[in-house]
């Protein structure tokens, strides 16, 4: 107390040290406050905005898909979910329990079940869990009390109505209506329509920027749903709202953007013909399996198309799947079952499967041989059942003799062009394709066969509005050297002439070749979309047939010199060659390989070409079917009718079906019959009207 005045109870320096310390603390606070509010203020304003401003996505309606006659193939059906908004439940626990008990009786979910812990909450999924109502609501309440919690999904409409009526007595309980994709025709059209699934992870970022909500919005996984996803899906609406900490919407901050519904699609498919085609396919396969008392084939394709417009009227890839089972979510067991099925139901065999086309491919050789002057159509060549040629891998090689047999080992005798096509005479085609001694000094050759095959649609994708189209394969020496690592042999040409060996084609390409011939060389763009309409029903894109090319007008054929080097010149196909090819296909039905199968149908004037394509793929090898001289074979048939003014082109393919004429042709016949029956019915209906 040495330096205190009577008035001063404290030592001055101690007192002012305290005062100074307090002062410094508050000065520091002011500086800190200035730094937070003024210097870094904007970043905190942004964070505050991020807290309170939420973008709400208003779901749009996916477009409806119908067949050409307006029959609905895909639509959105309301699905009823029971939801509870935790924040709106009564505050009284007893009242809440009463609501739970009442609801429990209606929807068959116990009031309380299961244990809430870290693990069970982590694996928790709405609509798919083992909890009781109390637990589900508890989880929802802790996440976002103002967000409705799905207690039970997909209840029937009757129960939904009952709960809807009780809503006023049960605060917090509500019925949520969610659109779910429904396919009235189910597995009949699933290979065309496809199915929906959650937005795939790979597209998540892209689709998010377009306003889609992963987890809620769906994405097409196959068929038209996939290929036309962008058109069908529409655009989600957007609202920017202010929310409080519980997620409750307070107000709109900006003017809401309404959702834009997706476009509707009218397909070229006639669902009645589709039904006939599928029935024809399934019953034919079943017939043979029953007849042979073993499962010989269980996979096939048939496609019907208007050759003049390219409209696909029916497209069957058998077997397929039930797309309604994947409407809400994709059940793992079902998806696994489909994925593991050796017949690959998820795979569209009509456009994605590549098989040796066999004799249907001969039409490319036939037109080529005529157009290139390899053979005079009237000249008769002898078929003794087989020919022997010298197999050479290089020009100067001595080579080894190799036999090429006709499917008829007795041979067809003397055969001209028309008989060659009608009888599908292998030896005739070997000779014109590869050349034979003095009869045909210079064959068409593999390079030029390729040109004509491509001109008919082989070897490239058609551009049909379905995902996963395959290209097929038109082999040539360059391809073989690169891919097989071996020189092209003379035998490769002979076998390629008749659509065997390395040649691969998709069923759609086979149909395109038939349609191009039927349409006098005009290759129409195959399509399954007839019209695109908006949600109000106005036509956005009307149907206009597109021609890919006309081989009689557009020079699609490369000219090769004697060393098989392209000269750079291009040429067209002379119309008379196509006319003769058509005559050959007429003859195949009138008096040829498919005559028996079309007996009684003469009035429909069907032209066709059979194909029995030997194959030896991994499945056949595994089944030990590949016996020398007796390989398994696919049944092919392609046709159109009527031959003087074709309206419909049909192809049929049965995997491991055996003979094209007896197995595939009947399928095509039943579709053609059905087509004309339906046409008669429609005409009669129009007359009545």
């Amino acid at each position, binding site marked *: 107390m040495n330096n205190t005045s009577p008035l001063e109870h404290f030592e001055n320096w101690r007192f002012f040290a305290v005062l100074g310390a307090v002062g410094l603390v508050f000065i520091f606070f002011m500086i800190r406050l200035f730094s937070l509010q003024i210097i870094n203020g904007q970043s905190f304003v942004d964070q505050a905005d991020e807290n*309170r401003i939420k973008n709400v996505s208003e779901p749009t309606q996916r477009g409806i898909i119908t067949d050409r006659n307006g029959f609905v193939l895909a639509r959105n059906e309301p699905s009823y979910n029971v939801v509870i908004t935790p924040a709106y439940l009564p505050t009284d626990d007893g009242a809440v329990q009463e609501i739970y008990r009442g609801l429990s009786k209606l929807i068959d979910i116990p009031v309380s079940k299961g244990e809430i812990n870290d693990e069970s909450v982590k694996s928790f999924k709405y609509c798919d869990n083992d909890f009781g109502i109390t637990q589900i609501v508890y989880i929802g309440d802790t996440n976002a009390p103002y967000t409705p919690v799905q207690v039970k999904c997909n209840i029937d409409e009757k129960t939904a109505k009952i709960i809807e009526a009780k809503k006023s007595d049960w605060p917090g309980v509500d019925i949520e209506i969610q659109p779910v994709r429904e396919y009235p025709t189910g597995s009949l059209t699933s290979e065309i329509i496809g199915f929906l699934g959650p937005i795939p992870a790979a597209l998540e970022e892209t689709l998010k920027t377009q306003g889609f909500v992963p987890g809620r919005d769906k994405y097409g996984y196959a068929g038209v749903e996939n290929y036309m996803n962008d058109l069908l899906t529409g655009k989600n609406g957007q609202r920017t709202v202010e929310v409080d900490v519980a997620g409750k919407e307070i107000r709109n901050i900006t003017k809401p953007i309404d959702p834009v519904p997706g476009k509707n699609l009218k397909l070229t498919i006639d669902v009645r013909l589709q039904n006939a085609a599928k029935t024809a396919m399934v019953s034919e396969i079943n017939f043979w399996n029953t007849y042979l008392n073993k499962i010989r084939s269980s996979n096939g394709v048939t496609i019907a198309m208007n050759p003049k417009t390219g409209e696909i009227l029916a497209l069957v890839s058998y077997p397929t799947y039930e797309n309604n089972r994947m409407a809400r979510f994709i059940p793992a067991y079902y998806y696994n079952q489909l994925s593991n099925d050796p017949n690959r139901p998820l795979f569209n065999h009509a456009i994605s499967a590549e098989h040796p086309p066999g004799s249907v491919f001969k039409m490319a050789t036939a037109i080529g041989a005529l157009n290139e002057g390899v053979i005079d159509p009237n000249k008769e060549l002898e078929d003794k059942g087989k020919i022997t040629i010298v197999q050479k891998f290089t020009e100067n090689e001595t080579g080894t003799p190799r036999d090429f047999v006709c499917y008829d080992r007795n041979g067809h005798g003397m055969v001209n062009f028309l008989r060659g096509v009608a009888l599908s005479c292998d030896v005739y085609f070997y000779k014109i394709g590869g050349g034979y001694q003095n009869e045909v000094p210079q064959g068409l050759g593999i390079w030029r066969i390729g040109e004509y095959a491509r001109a008919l649609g082989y070897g490239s994708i058609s551009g049909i509005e379905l995902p996963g189209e395959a290209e097929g394969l038109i082999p040539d020496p360059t391809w073989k050297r690169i891919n097989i690592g071996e020189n092209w042999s003379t035998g490769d040409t002979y076998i390629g002439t008749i659509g065997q060996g390395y040649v691969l084609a998709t069923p759609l390409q086979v149909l395109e070749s038939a349609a191009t011939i039927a349409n006098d060389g005009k290759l129409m763009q195959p399509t399954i979309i007839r019209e695109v309409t908006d949600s109000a029903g106005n036509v956005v894109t009307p149907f206009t047939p597109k021609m890919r090319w006309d081989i009689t007008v557009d020079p699609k054929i490369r000219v090769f010199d004697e060393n098989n080097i392209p000269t750079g010149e291009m040429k067209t196909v002379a119309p008379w060659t196509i006319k003769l090819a058509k005559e050959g296909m007429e003859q195949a039905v009138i008096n040829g390989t498919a005559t028996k199968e079309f007996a009684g149908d003469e009035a429909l004037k069907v032209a066709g070409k059979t194909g029995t394509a030997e194959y030896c793929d991994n499945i056949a090898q595994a089944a030990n079917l590949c016996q020398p001289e007796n390989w398994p074979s696919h049944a092919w048939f392609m046709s159109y009718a009527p031959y003087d003014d074709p309206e419909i082109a049909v192809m049929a393919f049965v995997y491991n079906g055996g003979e094209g004429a007896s197995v595939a042709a009947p399928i095509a016949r039943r579709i053609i019959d059905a087509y004309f029956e339906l046409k008669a019915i429609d005409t009669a209906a129009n007359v009545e009207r």
Partner: protein
Amino acid sequence: MYLYEPGNDEGSVEFLKIMFRLENWRHFDYWLFGTATILSIFGIIMIRSAVAGSIELAGYANRQTMFVVAGLVVVLATAVLDYHFLGNMARAMYIFAVVSLIVIYIYGQASFGSARWLDTGVFFIQPSELVKIIMVIVLSDYFSRSQLEKHDLMWIGKSAALTFGVVIWILLQPNLSTSIVITVLWISMLWISGLPPKYIALFIVLGIVLGLILFPFLESYQQLRIINFLFPDPNSRHGNSYNVEQALISIGSGGWFGMGYGHGTQVQLRFLKVRHTDFIFSAMAEEFGFVGTVLVISLLVFVIYRCFRVAREAQDQFGALIAYGVGVLLAFQTSVNIGVNLNVIPVTGLVLPFISYGGSSLLSTVLAIGLVESVALRRKPLDF
């Protein structure tokens, strides 16, 4: 020495006469009382904005209004009471404090493991809030009486025994923040009463060692708070740092002039938690901005300054220490609360004096102001 003696009716009449002598009220610190009143009313206004939109907090503003009205009466009543009388009562008050803290501790152990509240039947009070004021008187009494004693370890030890005799029970509640407040009060008293510099070094070393030893004994949530403060987890959005983070966003988004009363988005949409008590400073900063907040801080600093001023002018050492102790108490609580809000110190449960919601804390604050006014009323006039 004192006018009031029990049983001396003549004295008590005399006392009352002196009490209400008009000229004495000249010494009443109107600046202090006025500023405290303004701050308390501002507190009501701020609480009203902070609790808007919350059902469970509805009515808090009206309750606080009642507390404030009662509080102003308490200030005047305490001011009227001669603080020397309280000095005589110091021992009794100390015993009362320790007993009530032990009762609360046992009661807490028996019921749910932790209790800070005492149910008086009418309302709940937090005895530890009251104990802070009692300790101001008890320590002022001790240090003024021992003013002339040798300032040795014995002198320090006695005051330490007094202090930790109550702090231990508060620590056991557990209530770390109030324990620290009382400890700080004790240290500040030691300091101003002339703690020899050689012991200061001892204190610092002792403090660090004690801190390191005691840390493992802290409740896990207290440890977490300290760890969260020292090493914040940048990914935890709803974790332990959520409240502080939201407080910073609230303060930062205030800018120069704030978003306006009732328009702070963080406050009104309830992103800011405990915004009517611990984080009312942040709520204020968001709605009134830098300018408004600096103004309120200035008023708080002014109140603290007035307390120190009264201390300088007090009639005697006891009064000076009371006013000084209250000044330290207010300064420490205010700066800890603001420090938490500004995220410069770890989260504690200390509220902002005058402004935060709460009857108990307001009661202790107004009692404290009342004590200072009591000292002021009896100060030596500077102008004689």
